[in-house]
């Protein structure tokens, strides 16, 4: 059995993977969390490995996956300041379980690891060295997903995928540019607040706005809350709105307008990354909702028709990975069903395998 932990403040999520079956649990992260986790496991001796999701590796963790040792746990702790709530939770969980089960591998999968090697012109902010040396840079994100998309596209031989644009579609939509397996751009910056607007976070804005809000007397917590919890689709609409609400043909004209804003922002990122890659071979979407979000995928491909992309007229949305473009299209389009637990599990298994080979 493999045990996987995913911090989602104020909740802790975990799952057991046994014989290919995934059972998911979650609880409030309070003082009794450990008891609650133990309550879902019949026999801890059957646990073969434990995996932990680290959302922001900061400067400490620069790999997609690392074997946890007392030393590397220090690196994980170093990354805490970058996404304090999430990272604090996973460090606590890892500390507890590494002490409890000392003879099995503990593995941290890191969502920024895939982007640690981004070229410096993409990762740097145009700010003085004084700030850059404090770890102020663009870290990217959703590396687990985008690396998986690249590996899958290569193994399925979707077009030649030297130049790949990977789009994660969901409540935290974001885009990555990948050249020959190396991540060279991400819409996510220092934090996921940069880039695409999401259900409740603002995406790209003028940096002056933060300073205007400060001069108007708002506290840093209030501003943080406003930009990362009350903005995005919800902020535009003035009432809660998630990714799923945008899909299909929304009845409400205001929701349609939010969708238009979302699609426009996404189109700009795709164009920007085609430009950075100097062209594109494959545009791949990864989503929990392949069928529901089909119209978003097709809208993006339609906007690239001037590049000669040939959309398929009939697409089987139930296929394992629906191909969106004709065989002779110069740019391939594909959609993958993204199951996060599965991908985390694969990554953990992979490192375990490699680890045991080394031993």
């Amino acid at each position, binding site marked *: 059995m493999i045990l996987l932990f995913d911090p989602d403040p104020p909740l802790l999520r975990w799952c057991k993977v046994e014989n290919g079956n995934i059972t998911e649990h979650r609880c409030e992260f309070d003082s009794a969390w450990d008891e609650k986790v133990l309550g879902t496991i019949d026999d801890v001796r059957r646990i073969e490995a434990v995996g932990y999701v680290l959302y922001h590796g900061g400067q400490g963790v620069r790999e997609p996956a690392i074997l946890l040792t007392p030393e590397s746990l220090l690196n994980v702790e170093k990354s805490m*300041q970058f996404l304090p709530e999430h990272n604090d939770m996973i460090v606590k969980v890892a500390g507890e379980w590494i002490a409890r089960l000392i003879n099995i591998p503990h593995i941290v999968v890191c969502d920024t690891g895939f982007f640690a090697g981004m070229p*410096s*012109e*993409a990762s*740097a902010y*145009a*700010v*003085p060295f*004084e*700030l850059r040396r*404090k770890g*102020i840079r*663009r870290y990217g994100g959703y590396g687990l997903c985008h690396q998986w998309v690249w590996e899958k596209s290569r193994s399925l031989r979707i077009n030649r995928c030297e130049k790949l644009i990977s789009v994660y579609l969901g409540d935290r939509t974001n885009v990555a540019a990948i050249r020959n397996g190396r991540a060279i751009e991400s819409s996510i910056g*220092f934090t996921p*607040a*940069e880039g695409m*607007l999401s259900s409740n976070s*603002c*995406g790209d*804005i*003028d*940096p*002056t*706005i*933060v*300073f*205007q809000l*400060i*001069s*108007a007397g708002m506290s*840093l917590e209030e*501003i*943080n809350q*406003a*930009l*990362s919890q*009350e*903005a*995005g*689709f919800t*902020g*535009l609409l003035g009432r809660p709105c998630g990714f799923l609400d945008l899909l299909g043909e929304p009845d409400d004209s205001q929701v349609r*307008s939010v969708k*238009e*804003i979302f699609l*426009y922002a996404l*189109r*700009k990122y795709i*164009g*920007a*990354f*085609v*430009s*950075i890659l*100097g*062209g*594109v071979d494959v545009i791949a979407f990864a989503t929990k909702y392949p069928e529901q979000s089909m119209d978003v995928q097709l809208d993006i491909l339609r*906007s690239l028709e*001037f*590049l000669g992309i040939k959309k398929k007229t009939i697409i089987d949305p139930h296929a394992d990975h629906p191909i969106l473009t004709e065989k002779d299209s110069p740019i391939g389009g594909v959609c993958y069903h993204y199951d996060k637990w599965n991908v985390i599990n694969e990554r953990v298994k992979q490192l375990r395998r490699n680890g045991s080979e080394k031993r």
Partner: protein
Amino acid sequence: MNILVLNCGSSSLTFKVFAVDDSEIIREVLSGKANRVGVKGTEPSSMEIHFESKTYKEILPIEDHRSAAALAFEAILGHGIVIHCIGHRFVHGGSYFKGSTFIDKDTFEKLNQCQPLAPIHNPVALSVIREAQKYFRDVPHYVVFDSAFHHSLPLYAYVYALPKRLTEKFGFRKYGFHGISYSSVTEDISRLFGGASGKLKVIACHLGTGGSSVAAIKGNRSLDTSMGYSPLQGLMMSTRCGDIDPMLAIYLMTVHGYRSDDLMEIFSKKSGILGVSGFSSDIRDIIKRISDNEEDQADLALNMYVHRLRKYIGAYVAVLGGVDVLAFTDDIGVHNWLVREKVCEEMGWCGVKLDTDLNRQAVPDAVTPLQSKDSKAVILSIPTREELVICREGVKLLKHSNDIAF
């Protein structure tokens, strides 16, 4: 009659005197420019003036825009030129101003209130307006706004995904700037393409020694642009950071104890090319350092400058569904062949192919095509004529207000 146009850049002051005759034909009488006003760099500041086919140039310390303006006025009066009307460029008119207007007491007060919207430009422009009003007390002064050209932006391009209550309270939206320059470039492109310009997809890069931006223009209308609510957003500039994560400021204040005023100062005056290179805000210094093989942060500064511009161009190609004209303007745009060459590398995917020889030989003071024969898009180097646009706005205003004949 003679119209004096004053154009404050963030590190320069351009001034031109135009004579407008009865049939509204405009002739340039005198022109001049104060360079590197209040700039740290390897080259000193200077003042040059062109008058009656003579050029006067002097290297002297110019501390701020107000003193640059005073020098200009002395020179104009010294040449015995009489000024009848003065036009000022003003970067950010906020929501107060939709178009050009004369400056009366009420207007001045509103301009004053616009100061925080463009903290580098607006205070500087105001100081020049005050100085000009001291020297030329009895002539009408008017302002032309940089934000006006971008009024055509569609909602999905100008809106920020912020909570409604904040957007409504503060008027947050993308305004966009360099509009006077984009008007000038658009006019020149229209003239070049004649009647066919109505559907042209144009991406114009205004690359100045201070600020830089890109605009997506279709059928002579602006559809998107890289600067936002203020001129801080968008491209990496000489001392401005351009796009950053909105959480950066909050993080630096919370975790590292920065004060908000200091941080704003860092982002607007100590970042960009200066911040990355660590030694100069002038891209020419950066390029010189690279060719001297003393690579330090100079190559990073140049690569970042180009990378960020390429991202915007790509985004706007996607917005426009292709590109017919890629235009480069303002100082860096018309003078710097290396920047143009690097930006156009690997742009074949959208039909943009540069002729490297034409590009290197291009002269800065004329509209010059730079594309190779097999390029689908036209690439142009176009000198911006902001002052002429400002002068024409003045002619329109005067006609409208007094029905005066010229």
